[in-house]
C-alpha cells in the first residue's frame, strides 16, 4: 500500500476506557464500549471488500462484512442476527477474543495499522441487543422451536465450547442438557476471567438466552463421577459432547512451592471470580491479600492475576517472565492495560525457589536471570540461564500462572476415550468425534489451553456434525 493511500485511511475510533488512576483498584469493567455514534463511524470505515478476508480469520466464521454494513446503516438488530447466526456468544467474544490475530488480523486495512475494530463493533451490537426473551430474535424464526424431546444431546462442562454447541443445536430444535461440575454455569468465563474484563452479568445474559431456547443446565454434576457417558446413552441421549476444559494447574516443582502464600492462578482467580472473595467477609470465601506480589508467567492469565492482586490492595505487583516483553503470549491490549494500571514487569527472569519463615509463610523468591538464545520449536528465542546471575525479591504472595494441563476426572473414568500422550482427548479434526461413536469433544480438553473462540469453533463444528447425523437417523 502506497503512502498516499495510507494517508487517506482514517484512524480507528478509540475504545472509551475507565481512567487508569480510577480503575486500577476497582473491579468495574475497564473497557466501556462504543456509543452508537462511535460504532456507526467505525463501521463506515469498512471498505466492504469484494472478497472479504476477515471472515476466514474467525474460528466461528462470523460474517463480519455484512454485520459491519448493517451497523453502518444503523440496523443494529439485523447486525445482531447476522452475528448470532454463527456466534452464540457475541458479547463475550467482543470482549475476550484476540481479534488482532483473527478477524482484524486478516482485515485488508491491517497493513495500515488501522484495521476495522471488528471486536469492538461485535461487542457494541451484542450489548445493544436486549430483546432477549423473544425466540424470533434469537433464532430468526417467528415462533419458538419446541425442542424435540427425542433428539436429546448432552454436554459436559458449560464453558464456551458447550455453550456454543448448545446455542447451535437448541436453535434447531434439539434438546440440550449441560452438566456443569461447579455451582454456576460458564466455566472459565466465570471462574477464570475477571469481572473487570468480562462482567459476570454478560455471561449470565448469554446463559439466560440459552435457557430461553430450552437448554437445561444441571449444575453440581461432575462428568464421569455424578453422571457418566454410558449413563447418558442409557438415558436416551443421542450424542454427548465433552467440553470440560483443561483446568489442572501446573506447578514448577520448585523448593518452597507449597509454602503458604504460593497459589496457582486458578486458585487465586477462582476464589476471586467464582467465589467473589474480593468481597470477603460479605462472601464467605477468603482470599489472600498480598502486599508485595509476584506473578510467574506472561500470558493472559498472568495479567488477570496481576491486575486482580493490584485491585485487592497490593502495594506492588511484579509479573515475572523468562523471555522479554515482545514474546509475552498475553494480548497486547491486556498487557498495556496492566502496565497503565501500575503493574511492573521483571523480564528475563525465572523462579528458582521460594523461601518462607518459621510458620511456613512465603517471604522471598530467588530468581534466575535469563537471556535469549537460539529460537526453539515455537520460533521464539529460547530463554537460557545466565551463569551465576541470581537475585532475590521480597514477596508475601506468589501466583503461578505457568499454564494448565488436562484434568483427568472425566477421562480416567471413561476408559474407552482415546487420549494423546499429554492426556488430552483425541478427536477426528473434521467432525470433533472421539474414539467413542457419537461422543464428541472440543475446547481445551482437546487442544490444551487455547482461546475462548477456538473452543467455540470446536463446539460449532461438533454441533454441525451432530445435527447432520440426528437428521439422517
Amino acid at each position, binding site marked *: 500500500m502506497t503512502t498516499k493511500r495510507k494517508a487517506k485511511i482514517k484512524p480507528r475510533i478509540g475504545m472509551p476506557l475507565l481512567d487508569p488512576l480510577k480503575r486500577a483498584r476497582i473491579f468495574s469493567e475497564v473497557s466501556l464500549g462504543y456509543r452508537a455514534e462511535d460504532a456507526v463511524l467505525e463501521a463506515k470505515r469498512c471498505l466492504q471488500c469484494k472478497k472479504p478476508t476477515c471472515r476466514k480469520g474467525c474460528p466461528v466464521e462470523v460474517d463480519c462484512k455484512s454485520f459491519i454494513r448493517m451497523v453502518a446503516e444503523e440496523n443494529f438488530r439485523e447486525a445482531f442476527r447476522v452475528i448470532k447466526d454463527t456466534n452464540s456468544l457475541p458479547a463475550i467474544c467482543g470482549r475476550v477474543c484476540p481479534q488482532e490475530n483473527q478477524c482484524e488480523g486478516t482485515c485488508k486495512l491491517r497493513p495500515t495499522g488501522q484495521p476495522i475494530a471488528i471486536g469492538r463493533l461485535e461487542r457494541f451490537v451484542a450489548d445493544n441487543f436486549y430483546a432477549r426473551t423473544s425466540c424470533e430474535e434469537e433464532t430468526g424464526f417467528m415462533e419458538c422451536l419446541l425442542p424435540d424431546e427425542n433428539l436429546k444431546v448432552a454436554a459436559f462442562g458449560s464453558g464456551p465450547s458447550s455453550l456454543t454447541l448448545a446455542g447451535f443445536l437448541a436453535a434447531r430444535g434439539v434438546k440440550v442438557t449441560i452438566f456443569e*461440575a*461447579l*455451582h454456576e454455569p460458564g466455566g472459565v468465563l466465570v*471462574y477464570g476471567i475477571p469481572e473487570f474484563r468480562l462482567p459476570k452479568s454478560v455471561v449470565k445474559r448469554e446463559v439466560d438466552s440459552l435457557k430461553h431456547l430450552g437448554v437445561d443446565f444441571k*449444575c*453440581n*454434576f*461432575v462428568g464421569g*463421577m*455424578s*453422571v457418566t457417558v454410558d449413563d447418558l446413552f442409557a438415558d436416551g441421549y443421542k450424542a454427548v459432547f465433552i467440553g470440560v476444559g483443561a*483446568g*489442572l*494447574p501446573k*506447578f514448577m*516443582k520448585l523448593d518452597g*512451592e*507449597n509454602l*503458604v502464600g504460593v*497459589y*496457582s492462578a*486458578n*486458585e487465586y482467580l*477462582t*476464589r476471586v471470580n*467464582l*467465589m*467473589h472473595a474480593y468481597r*470477603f*467477609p*460479605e*462472601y*464467605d*470465601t*477468603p482470599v*489472600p491479600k498480598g502486599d508485595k506480589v509476584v506473578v510467574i508467567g506472561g500470558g493472559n492469565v498472568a495479567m488477570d492475576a496481576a491486575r486482580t492482586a493490584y485491585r485487592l490492595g497490593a502495594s506492588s505487583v511484579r509479573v515475572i517472565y523468562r523471555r522479554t516483553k515482545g514474546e509475552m503470549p498475553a494480548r497486547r491490549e491486556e498487557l498495556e492495560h496492566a502496565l497503565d494500571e501500575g503493574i511492573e514487569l521483571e523480564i528475563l527472569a525465572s523462579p528458582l525457589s521460594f523461601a518462607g519463615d518459621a*510458620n*511456613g509463610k512465603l517471604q522471598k523468591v530467588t530468581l534466575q536471570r535469563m537471556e535469549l538464545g537460539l529460537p526453539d520449536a515455537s520460533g521464539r528465542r529460547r530463554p537460557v540461564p545466565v551463569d551465576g546471575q541470581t537475585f532475590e525479591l521480597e514477596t508475601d504472595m506468589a501466583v503461578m500462572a505457568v499454564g494448565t494441563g488436562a*484434568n*483427568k*476426572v472425566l477421562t480416567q473414568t471413561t476408559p474407552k476415550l482415546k487420549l494423546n500422550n499429554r492426556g488430552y482427548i483425541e478427536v477426528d479434526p473434521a467432525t470433533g468425534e472421539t474414539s467413542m461413536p457419537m461422543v464428541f469433544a472440543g475446547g481445551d480438553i482437546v487442544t490444551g489451553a487455547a482461546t475462548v473462540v477456538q473452543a467455540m469453533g470446536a463446539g460449532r463444528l461438533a454441533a454441525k456434525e451432530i445435527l447432520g447425523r440426528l437428521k439422517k437417523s
Partner: protein
Amino acid sequence: MINKILKKRILIPGRVSELTIYAPHIAEKARPGNFAVLRLSEKGERIPLTIADRDPENGTIVIVYLVLGKTSALLDTHVEGDVILDLCGPLGKPTEIKKQGEVVCVGGGTGIAAMHHIAKGNFEAGNEVTSVIGARSKDLLLFKPELEKISSRVLIATDDGTVGHKGFVTEVLQKYLQNNSSVSEVVAVGPVPMMKAVAKVTAPFDVRTMVSLNSIMVDGIGMCGACRVSVGGEIRFACVDGPEFDASRVDFDELMTRLCAFRDQEMLSMELFKKSEAS
C-alpha cells in the same frame, strides 16, 4: 426433592451431627472414600465433607460434620426438611478395596464417621475388620454401634479413660499390631496429628497404611490446587489424586501448615456469624 435433609441426628449437641440427605445420583455412584462438596448460600463457600454412608435404594447419603467454622456452624442451623443449596459429588478417588484378609480401620474424632464407610466397604468385600476408635471422652465416640455390626472387634481409646484405653488410638494400634502379624492393611482417618502418629506407629510393621487427607479445597475437582500435598516429594492434589494416600510418603507437617493458611479470615467469619446469630 433433591438435596433435602431427610434426617438429622445430633451426635454431640452443638458440635457433631449426622445428616441423611436425599441425593439419588450421588447415592448411586458413591463409594467408600468419596467425598462431596457443599455450599449453603449464594454468598457461601464450598466445603468438602466425606460421605459417611449411602443407601442407593432410598437415594440417600449420610454426612457427618464437626462445627468448626462459619459454614459448618451455618449447616448446624439446618433442620430436617431444609434443602442444601449446592451438593456436588461423589468426588475423589474411592478407597481401593480388595479382598485381602484383615484390615485395621483407625478413626479419631469426627474422622470415625468417614472411616465407617471404608470399614463397611471392607466388610462387604469379605475382609475381617478391626476398628480402632478414639475421642476425648466416652460421649464423643461416634458410630460405635454401627462399627460393632461390621467389625470383628472394636478397640477404644479415650483421652480421659472414661471407656477403653486411657490415651491415644496409636497406643492401642501399636499393641494390636505387635500381637497380630496377619494384618494386611491399616486405614486411618482423623486429625492430622493422629494420622501422622499412625504413620509412625505402623512404619516398623511393614504394613500398607493409608490415610485420608482433609486439605483446604475450593472446587474439589482438580482445578485449583489449594489442596495440594507433598507425597513422596511430589505435588499431589487431595481432591483428585486422593484423598487417600500412602501414609509413609505424606508430608504431614506441610499439610498442617497449609491447613492454617486462612486461619485469621476463618476466625473473623465465625465471629461475624456468631454476632449475626445473636442479634
